[in-house]
């Protein structure tokens, strides 16, 4: 280009227009070239598996050969008590753990935003740190802490004169333990997202509320919460997706037990594919999960999203 310009410093208007026409396709090509690497990677590692797993979900492997069975795997899903158990367990976590965690995160965000708090950055870091911990590492730490006979938590409880709690060996307590682990891990992360949003809420609104005579509760209810709305939607959707895909915590802590009390769709999918070598059925589970996430996500957008 620059070479052309030097040769024809006094280019006429039509010539310039022609050059512009010539260069336009090239200009259009450039952005595609730039995103090509990402596109190729996405196609190879996301698009291809997604497409292939759909094909797989329509097949059944018998004696090493795949036979086409149509929607059989999906029909089997409806009739599979373990799939429903996994769904039910996931629903319990969604209904109990996610709201509790988000409420905690909101409270935490407000506290961490308060000017009354000294050493705010230290606290922020402290609450965010669990998020940086490797999932498996913290799973193992929790399993050591919560062990019924040799765990630190029960040792402490017994010092206080109470009986040890069967944290991971009782169906109900196992669910609670998973919830505790999840809350410990993700509350700080959600609090940081909420905190970021909180800092964009204009200070004038608080001043106006104060002038109108609103107390702390009313300020929170009518200024802070509406201000947090988009971030609350984001954290709710992310937590919902995370919960539906829940795998690491139950896999490390309970392997889905005892007696499937903490079996999640993720764990069931893993067992089906990598323990039972039933890749077709596992793919069907994955698709059912994806559809479920899509539906729940849409509902949350409708309910919590901006009405404008």
């Amino acid at each position: 280009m620059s070479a052309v310009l030097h040769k024809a410093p006094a280019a006429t208007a039509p010539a310039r227009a022609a050059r512009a026409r010539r260069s336009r396709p090239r200009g259009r090509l450039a952005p595609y070239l730039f995103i090509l690497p990402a596109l190729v990677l996405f196609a190879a590692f996301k698009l291809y598996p997604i497409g292939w797993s759909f094909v797989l979900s329509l097949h059944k492997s018998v004696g090493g050969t795949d036979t086409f069975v149509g929607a059989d795997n999906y029909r089997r899903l409806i009739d599979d008590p373990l799939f429903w158990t996994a769904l039910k367990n996931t629903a319990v976590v969604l209904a109990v753990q996610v709201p509790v965690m988000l409420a905690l995160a909101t409270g935490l965000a407000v506290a961490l935003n308060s000017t009354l708090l000294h050493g705010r950055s230290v606290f922020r870091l402290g609450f965010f740190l669990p998020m940086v911990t490797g999932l498996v590492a913290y799973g193992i730490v929790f399993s050591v802490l919560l062990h019924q006979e040799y765990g630190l938590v029960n040792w402490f409880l017994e010092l206080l004169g109470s009986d040890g709690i069967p944290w991971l060996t009782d169906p109900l307590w196992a669910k609670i333990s998973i919830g505790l682990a999840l809350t410990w891990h993700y509350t700080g992360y959600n609090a940081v997202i909420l905190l970021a949003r909180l800092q964009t809420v204009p200070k004038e609104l608080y001043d106006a509320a104060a002038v109108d005579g609103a107390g702390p509760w009313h300020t929170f209810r009518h200024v802070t919460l509406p201000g947090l709305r988009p971030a609350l939607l984001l954290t709710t959707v992310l937590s919902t997706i995370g919960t539906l895909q829940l795998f690491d915590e139950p896999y490390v802590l309970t392997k889905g037990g005892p007696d499937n009390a903490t079996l999640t769709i993720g764990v069931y999918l893993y067992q089906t594919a990598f323990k039972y070598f039933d890749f077709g059925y596992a793919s069907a589970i994955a698709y059912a999960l994806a559809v479920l996430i899509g539906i729940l996500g849409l509902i949350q957008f409708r309910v919590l999203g901006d009405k404008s």
Partner: protein
Amino acid sequence: MNVSPVNTPLGIDRRRLLQLGGALAAATSLAACSGTGSAGTGGAGDKDKASITVWSWLEPAKALKAMVPEFRKKHPGIKVTVQDIGNPAIWDKITTGMAAGGEGLADVLHIGVDYLPGYAEKFPDGLADLGGLGATKYRGAFAPGLWRTVSPDGKRVNALPWEANSAGFWYRADLFEKAGVDAGALATWDDAIEAGKKIKAKTGIRLIGIDKPASQADAANFFQMLLQLQGTFYFNADGDITLDSPEAVRAMKIIKRMNDAGLVSDFSGGWNTMVRSLKKSTVAVHPSPTWFGGVIEREVPQQKGKWRVQLPPAVRPGGSRSATVNSTHLAVAGSSPHQAAAWSFVEYVLTRPASQAKIYRSAAIAPALMEAYDDAAFHQPSAYFGGQKRGEVFLKALKAPSPAFNYSADYARALKVVTDAQTKVLLKGADPADVLGDAADQLGKQTGRKIVR
């Protein structure tokens, strides 16, 4: 602030939808890590010159490593690298390798009897046919029942047997003595329960340990052994489900009675809990197979002289007291380009009595190779076990006729419903016949196999 993910109504939707899409993609792509490509892409390769890799775990891996220098003296052109993948990590690693058409697999794979039939059936070219490499001539060399395990159709040879573990009854002689119980007089498991009550009353120590909430896949080892002592299993020879047979119900009832009498310690947490229990002496008996002797000696050297071993009591009066409860095998990957060299290594380790005797001396791994038992190592009194000749205890069991238990390709599924049933019995006091009936139904539905009642 710029951390905030939302600015305009339009931006919100697009970004969130992208995130949503990303999550969907992650959800669906996990199951897609499989392929159906043929794994039989390898070949015999140069028999004398190759570099091969071997996958195993812990003690067996160490034992294999120790074999390499002398193997290389005979086969200087073959370089051998033994990798300790760990157990159970090795199963996931082999599975993903097989599913990827043999990509990234080692040349020699150490595989347990619980996984071998599954790999062979689901990945027909995943394992090389050792018959073509010269394995068939060793047909009669191994413990009874094991050839059918490695060569179900009598033609194709999927692997060669390495260790053969017999059911054992490792007990603390000092505790038995304290309670005034004669271990040698225990003829049935009913006797053992009565003995357990006495031991608990005198010493406060429970009889055995079971992973009650089934935190590990092998939580039903004891139940399985009680079945095998009766010559039955989860599947019969035709592959039909026999999960709620009278033998199975009888076995589960024994476990329930033990648990109801407070004789079962909770081993939830698996291996680590079991080792801690050894160190803290929380149970008097480990109804574990042959290999467990090596574990005791290694983990609690300070308890020298306190342990003894015998064959387990029978389930019913006059019933069998011996069963080959499990075995492990060496296979050659179908994708290996050095199958001939890999076979040389397998043959050197598994078919030479001297190799197996050496491994037994260092790692107490009991060989399936019957000829190996002529070595003095199996007939020496063990100082740790109070001068007992423990090698001979298990040799007697190994020589007894043992049926070939059909693990089938659905063993992992069977194990899952069995451990769930056992958990219901141990934690909720469920009725053994009920839960086993349900388990059989569920397994039938999942696998399409017939249930024999």
